[in-house]
């Protein structure tokens, strides 16, 4: 991973990313949920956040690599998303953590 990019990430995210990624694949350019079109089904490429708990939690809802997700609407700066037959509202920070293929 590019050193300049690492400098701007929180330390925990950096170590976590490093431990997870043996390859030199980078994510910043990847499309994330906050850029998704409304009403279009996407496949999740990965969920990346410094906070491991939130990644685990999203996992239990069925929001993880390989699963599909649809943005239903944008409400009050929150994203309404449909995963596994249920609706959730997530904020922009969390939407950016969900990377799409």
């Amino acid at each position, binding site marked *: 991973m590019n050193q300049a990019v690492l*400098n701007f990430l*929180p*330390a925990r995210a950096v170590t976590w990313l490093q431990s997870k990624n043996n390859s030199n694949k980078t994510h910043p350019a990847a499309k994330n949920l906050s850029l998704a079109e409304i*009403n279009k*089904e996407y496949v999740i490429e990965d969920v990346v*956040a*410094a*906070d491991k*708990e*939130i990644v*685990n*939690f*999203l*996992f*239990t*809802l*069925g929001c*993880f*690599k*390989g*699963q599909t997700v*649809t943005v*239903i*609407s944008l*409400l*009050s*700066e*929150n994203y*309404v998303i*449909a*995963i*596994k*037959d*249920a*609706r*959730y*509202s*997530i*904020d922009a*920070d*969390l939407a950016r*953590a969900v990377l799409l293929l």
Partner: protein
Amino acid sequence: MKIALAGNPNSGKTTLFNAITGKIEHVGNWAGVTVSKKEGIIKKTVNPSDTRITAVDLPGAYSMSPFSSEETITRDFIKNEKLDVIVNIVDATSLNRSLFFTTQLLALGIPVVVALNKSDLTKKKKTTINIANLSAQLGCPVVETIAANSSHNGLETLISKVIEVNGQPQTAPFSDQGVDLKNPQSVEYFDTQRFEFVKDLVGKVENRQIKSNAQTNQDIADRFLAHKWLGLPIFALVMWSVFSISQTHLGPILADTLVGWIDGLYALVEGLLGDQVSPVLSALLLDGIIGGVGAVVGFLPLIMVLFFLLALLEDSGYMARVAVVMDRFFKKVGLSGKSIIPMVIGTGCAIPGVMATRTIQNERQRRTTAMLTPFMPCGAKLPVIALFAGVFFNDAAWVGTAMYFTGIAIIIFGALMVVRITGEKNARTFFILELPEYRFPSIKRAIVSTLARAKAFIIKAGTIILLCNAAVQIMQTFNWQLQVVAEGAEQTSILAGIATPFAFVLIPLGFGVWQLAAAAITGFIAKENVVGTLAVVYGITNFIDTEELALVAGGSDVAGIMGLSSVAALAYLMFNLFTPPCFAAIGAMNAELEDKKWLWGGIAFQFGMGYVVAFITYQAGSYITTGALGQGFVYGLIACLALFGALIYCVNQGERKAQQTLALYTA
């Protein structure tokens, strides 16, 4: 025989629990209403057999892998308790997610019965589920239920299945043999497989006509109710309706009737006692008990109407949308959008409000919300507000409204301070909340929940408040030598002796009188006590009817009885509202904060806030109305400056910590 009700949040566990046990536990239409386990015996109408079954209602969980504290309770309970059967409540509208947890429960070796709840909603969505096939695939009985219905709800069938499978072995449809629970990668691998298994299974048993990610009417409703700007006036209108119906329209009409009955009782008892009874006893009975408790019970209708409307609101699914609307504002002050739910509930009672903070994942946001929720004027503070608005402000509507807005302002200020004190100003937090489906709120459930609250209120009035008022009456009647206090020598009574030192501290706030200090102190036991105690110490039995107050005062200015100016009265009202809540709410805070430093910090903040707000109100108000500052200005100012100094010191410490963390990240 013992069974547990387990399932995803908002799948209807508590509704089902209430329906099979006849209990009245609190339900609401959002994820995470139940925060601790509850037990009950299943009633005869759904369990005609001779087997006695204890049901345990657990907080919702999405999986056995713990994330929030509720899920930990569920997981520990299921693993440690000797359960005979697990009833897994599955939301029929989201099988793809719900069955993940089901497959985990099936692997525990305890017989499972699946209650396919909200089965009426699937029909509405033109989704059909092949029950027989689902049951075969899972290897356990599946019963369609509609727990919210009072009949044809499938609950009897459910319980008969529970009895049937009791003692039977349970096989797991999905095997995760070889999983290494200590290795996250291994767990993730098997859980991914588990989701795949569920997806396959759902594909076989479910026939969906409308895809779950298609836009629905509900989504259209969301666009208005949770609209970026429209959402705010809608929320304001909803809350305004709740308060105006309960406090200015329906509530007072009912309250007047009830007060009439209490007056009748007073007169009846007075007549029965006659002149032969000792004046001490008659004063205790009439002024202490009927007067004091009556002053509190008279407000019951207002509180019941408020609880009824809040129950409707909670049941509708609207609260989750409010959380979405408020998130971006609350985030700015370091709270979560979910913090609004405890605060709205807190307008009814701070205790369930504080408990509702448990759905907030971030620890600091959760604790800050628990610490600040009691600043929302609760139902028990309504009598106090109504009394002061009635006596000093001619029942002006602005008094109540101003109290709520002051509460909100204090919460915002408090949140801004806490996020700085903890040094987490730059910390990132995430917001995620399940959006439940809207539903027409059940009037029956709201009535049941209101009656439960009313019962608790009456019990409180009949025990704690009654005892307090009797004690206040006795302490007021006797002096330290245990002689009856002579007329005109009230300041020699025990009560005056205890309250005077406190009254001294309150002089800069405009109400340094022992009677008022005593009332404020009893307010910590229960806030309604403020009214009860004032009724006792001033010998006024009817606080809602200001005409009677005028009568007592001999037709002169009613405020004269208490010897307070309007400004001092407002300061006293604010002091009572914005100091620490009652002991029961402090207990709830203690349970949720889980940290003594936070608890004492919170209480100190509440005390300081009450003092400073009352000081500013009294002194500034006096200056505006009379052109001169009130009594004890300098002493009060010193105290307030000291409090501010302490706050600034804490904030500075926190800022330093924040800078260190920031430096650490960027280094």
